[in-house]
Structure formats: structure tokens, C-alpha cells
């Protein structure tokens, strides 16, 4: 275990996996159990998504009208509008029924269905987090394995040091710094939005325009998430490097970089691949601030707008959707580990 944020996850999932080996469960039983766990989590999100906004101290309508002058009649009208005049139990049933139709209620500030708003903002978030994740993973794993292989070298010290510093950087501050550099002085890259307003570009011009808008938010997200991959990959490869099979590989006369590429790295990748999926939650959380800094029209920026409203139905909707995405990704991570790790498969 290193201090990388993912290290605990590795240790945690490892205990799970050894349990499995001992029980010798089949893949489908394993998948079934994990699916059951994911379903329970989803149910907990649905319940939490409802009760967090109602049971906790503070009347949602009063929160909504905080700092505004409203009379009792308006408060009553708002109550009716949000269905808050029903009993709690009835509200919950209505919420469940609506949710099963994909209806997340109506946004207060946008005066539109929350589901529509989320659907509109999903694409930009997937684009931003997807591109950042691919770059961060590729870069992080490459640097991490190189650092581990040349342990204690200058490269190792420099890259581990950089990773530790980057891990200590608040994502949004890095964004602000880029804004400072590119927004104020240089002005060679756009610092807000996803497309240039007024520019009705199509085809290749549109792609180029979006790509230019992508550069700064992507750099911000990559810089911060890349660090954890460096640290995890490094720790994981160092663990593999003490294994006997590497001695065997060398003994049969394999060149050093073949030993590394054919034998050590594939094995060290196993825990890392799972972590990638587990960290999608963190990546999405990072998107909240990065999208806010660069006004990127994604789910994160939508969450920020819901916060400043405050728009409780919208906030509840984004919470449920964020959590759904993360739980599903974790489920995939669990299955993937089982498929990838022969030790678990053989059991």
C-alpha cells in the first residue's frame, strides 16, 4: 500500500477476492452476488436521494426562499408545486413511481424536467471525462511503470515527487491558474464554454472548435488524476518485481525490457485496471469544479447551477444520476477484475 488514494481500494478489494478464492465460486455466482450488492447500493441511493432532502433539518421551501421576501401564501403555493403538502409516505411513493418512468421532477430554476436537463448535459461531461481519463491513464501508467523499473533513480524521484505535488493540488485551483495564464495574458485558447458563441461552424470546423475549448479543462483534469495512476502503477509493479517468475524469465536469457513488457507489466496492470473504473467516481467529482471554472456545459456545471439556485429537484436528480453512473462503473470493475485475474478465475 502506498499513500495513493487508490491504495486503500486495492487492499479493500483484495480481502474480497481472497474470500472468493476460498469459496471457489463460479463466475456467475460471483457476478450475481456483485449485482445484488450493486442493486442494494442503487436502492440506498434512491432512498437517500429522497430523504436527504426531506428528513434533514431545514424545510426545502425555506431553503429555496432563503434571503428572498416571500409571504405565507407563496410558501404554500411552492409547497403544492413540489408536492410537499402530501404526507411523507405518499411523497415517497409518488417519487418512486415517477423515478421508474425516468421522471426526476421539474427543475425550479430552469422550469424544465430535470431528466431532460441531465440528458442535455450528459454528452459534454462524457466527452470531457472520457478524454481526460484516457490521457491520464496512458500517461500515468507509462510514467508509473518507468519509475518503478528504475526505482530510486532520478526519473523515479522526479516523477513520484511531481505526482505527490499534483495530488495535493485542488483541481479547481489549477483551473484558475490556467484561466489566469490563458484568459488574461495569452488569449490563444478559449477559457469558457464548449463552442464559440455566434460561430455556427459545422463538420470539421465544429470539431476543431470543440477541441480547442477542451484543451484547458482536459489539462486540469489530467494533471490531478494522472498522479494517482503513477503512484498506483509504481507500487503495483514494485510488488511484482520481487516475484520469482521474473528471475525465471531472466534466467532463460530474456532481454531486460522484454522481461518488463511481457512479464511484469501485464501482471502489475491487473489491480490498476480495476482502479481505473473505481476512480470514475472521483473523476466525475473532479468534473464538478473543473466544469464550474471553465463553464463547461456538463453535469458538473449543472450541479453547480443547482447549488446556487438552490434548485433542490435538480440537485436531487444530479445526485441520483451521478451515483447510478458510479455504482454501475464499480460493478463493471468487479466483473473485469474477475475476468482479468487468472488466479481468481481458476478458483
Amino acid at each position, binding site marked *: *500500500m*502506498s*499513500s495513493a488514494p487508490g491504495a*486503500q*481500494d486495492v*487492499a*479493500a478489494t483484495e*480481502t474480497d477476492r481472497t474470500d472468493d478464492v476460498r469459496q471457489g465460486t463460479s463466475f456467475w455466482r460471483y457476478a450475481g452476488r456483485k449485482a445484488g*450488492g450493486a442493486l*442494494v*447500493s442503487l436502492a*440506498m*441511493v434512491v432512498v437517500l436521494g429522497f430523504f*436527504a*432532502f426531506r428528513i*434533514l*433539518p*431545514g424545510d*426545502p421551501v425555506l*431553503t429555496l426562499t432563503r434571503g428572498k421576501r416571500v409571504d405565507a401564501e407563496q410558501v404554500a403555493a411552492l409547497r403544492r408545486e413540489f408536492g410537499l403538502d402530501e404526507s411523507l409516505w405518499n411523497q415517497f411513493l409518488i417519487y418512486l413511481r415517477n423515478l421508474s418512468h425516468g421522471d426526476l421532477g421539474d427543475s425550479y430554476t430552469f422550469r424544465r424536467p430535470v431528466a431532460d436537463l441531465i440528458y442535455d448535459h450528459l454528452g459534454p461531461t462524457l466527452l470531457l471525462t472520457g478524454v481526460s481519463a484516457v490521457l491520464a491513464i496512458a500517461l500515468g501508467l507509462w510514467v508509473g511503470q518507468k519509475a518503478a523499473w528504475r*526505482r*530510486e533513480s532520478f526519473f523515479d524521484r522526479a516523477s513520484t515527487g511531481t505526482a*505527490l*505535488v499534483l*495530488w*495535493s*493540488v*485542488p483541481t*479547481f*485551483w489549477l483551473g*484558475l*491558474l490556467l*484561466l*489566469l495564464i490563458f*484568459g*488574461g*495574458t495569452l488569449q490563444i485558447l478559449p477559457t469558457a464554454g464548449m463552442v464559440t458563441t455566434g460561430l455556427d461552424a459545422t463538420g470539421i470546423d465544429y470539431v476543431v472548435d470543440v477541441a480547442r475549448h477542451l484543451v484547458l479543462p482536459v489539462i486540469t483534469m489530467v494533471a490531478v488524476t494522472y498522479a494517482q495512476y503513477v503512484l498506483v502503477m*509504481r507500487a503495483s509493479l*514494485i510488488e511484482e518485481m520481487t516475484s520469482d517468475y521474473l528471475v525465471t524469465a531472466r534466467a532463460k536469457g530474456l532481454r531486460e525490457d522484454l522481461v518488463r513488457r511481457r512479464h511484469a507489466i501485464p501482471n502489475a496492470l491487473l489491480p490498476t485496471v480495476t482502479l481505473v473504473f473505481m476512480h470514475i*467516481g*472521483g473523476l*466525475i*467529482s473532479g468534473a*464538478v*469544479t473543473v466544469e*464550474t*471554472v471553465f463553464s463547461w456545459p456538463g453535469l458538473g456545471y449543472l*450541479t*453547480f447551477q443547482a*447549488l446556487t439556485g438552490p434548485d*433542490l429537484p435538480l*440537485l*436531487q436528480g*444530479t*445526485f441520483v444520476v*451521478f*451515483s447510478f453512473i*458510479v*455504482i454501475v462503473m*464499480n460493478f463493471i470493475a468487479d466483473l473485469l477484475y474477475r475476468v482479468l485475474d487468472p488466479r481468481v478465475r481458476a478458483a
Partner: protein
Amino acid sequence: MTTQRTEAPGSPAPGSPRSAAKPPHSARSVANARRRQRLVEVWTEFRKSPSGLFGLIFLIIVILLAILAPVIADRSLLDVTQIDNAANEPPSMQNPLGTDPSGRSVLVMLLWGSRVSLMVGVAATAMSMVIGTVVGMAAGHFGGLGGALLMRVVDFFLVLPSLVLAIVLSSVLQRGVWTIVIAIGITSWAGTARVVRSQTLTIESRSYIERSLALGAGHRHIIGRHVLPAVMPLVMANTTLTVGAAIIAESTLSFLGLGDTTQTSWGSMLKLSMDSGAATGGYWWFVLPPGLAIVVVVLAFTLVGRAFESVINPTLRGR
């Protein structure tokens, strides 16, 4: 303590000069001596890590500055109505780090902000550690259906994007510093719980627990005397690492406007710098310092935590 005074063969007679210098070895004094020795060992190992030592010294300085803030700069300097500096003034002799959009000295804000940021970081971590340790030990010790249910809850919190949950919590609760502490504490304990649980299981499979049980020890004795002391070092090392994460979480929540608007923290300074357009306006002296302060303090906590962790778990050395 009294039973073994004179009866024990070879022990010095009461009142003799030797007994004053060497007190009788009671169970407590032996335990204390062992604890002291262990502390010395930990310190000797810790001292070997230059980066850990550097982090520790730095942290001590920052904590001293935060405590002494009222002595160094009066609080009234943060009151917009009582100052007459120009807004967004670049660094000068009078204001070494310039001024913010309402004319307050950035240096003074930074100093006072350290109090809130450090306090939230430490308090949230303490809360997270207590919840994590209690839940982890309970799940590990009691096992069965209750333990399994607890672990489901742990898994749930482990999987959920903690920032998003913290946003939800701090937006429905009354705004304030303690809300931020609660939001971070509630969303960050799950990792600790898992580690503590597996450590509890390891400890409880040892034979001295069996011996203890055979002698009639109850749950309280097993957990309090055997499990807790064994998981504590692990939790302590984890604590230093978590403080850094909690400080970042505080700044993120404040940045999103969920913090206490009447209190100056590093996060709320960054929010103000974003809202006032300091970044696009080129007022670098209001963007750089709060962020740098966060980075350096979090890094210091991380360095200390890593050094501490490798002392407690020697297999990590050199990683």
C-alpha cells in the same frame, strides 16, 4: 501495585535508597515503559525520512502561525468597513501580497484562513476516523448478519462519489463551518472502516485472543485491550494522510459556495477570486497564495503520513 512490594524475592526493602530510584515493576509501569520505548523507536525510524521530517517541521510552523494569528494581525483587518486600502492592489511594502476586491490584505486573509482550513481538516478527519474505527471494529469483531449489513453500508459509502454526497449534505443542512466538517466526516470514513475491519480480523485470528476468551474475556475487554491498541497505529498513520484530503475537500466545498460566508478560509478566498474575476483580470496575487497554501500544507501532511506509515508498516519502505 502493592501486592508485589516486599513478598517478591530479590526486591529491595522498602525505604532503601534503591527503591526510590527503581520503582517496583507494576503492570502499568511496565506497559508505560513499553509504550515510551515504542514511541522512541517510532521517532528514531521517522527521523530517518528527510521528507517526513521536513513536512513535520513545516506543519509545526504553519500550526503556530494559525494559533498566533490574532497576535500577528488583528481581526479588524478583515473587516471591510474598517480598512482603507485600494481594491485589487498589487503587492507592495504595506500589503506584501496585495489586496482583494474589497481592499483587505491578502496576507492577513491567508493567515486567518489557515485557522478555518486547518480546523476543518483536523475536525473532519477526527470524525471520519472515529466513525471508521468504530464501524470497522464492530464489523470485524461481531461478524455474522450485523457485520455483513455494516459492510454493505461501508461499501455503499466507499463507492459513492464522496464530493457529490458532501455537496448534497452541506446544501440541505444549515450553512456553516460545522456543516462542512460533518459533510466531510460522514462521506470519508468508509476507507478507514475497511482497513480497520481487515486488521481486526487478523488480530482476532491470533491465539492470544483465544486464550483471552478462554479466561472469560468479554467483548469489551477483547476490543478495548487487544483490538483497539492493535489498530490504533494504522489509524494514526491514516489520519495524517486524511487531513490533507479533508483540507482539499473543505476548499472544494467552499469554492462551490457551500462554506460559511462569514468566515475566511483558503477555499472561500478562491471562491471570491473566481467570483470577482481575479483570474481573468490578471490579479495573480489573489489567485496564487490561497492555492499554494493548500498545496503546500496538504503536501506536508502527505509527506508526514507516508513517513509515519512506512515506520508502522516496514514492508512499505522504499515505495
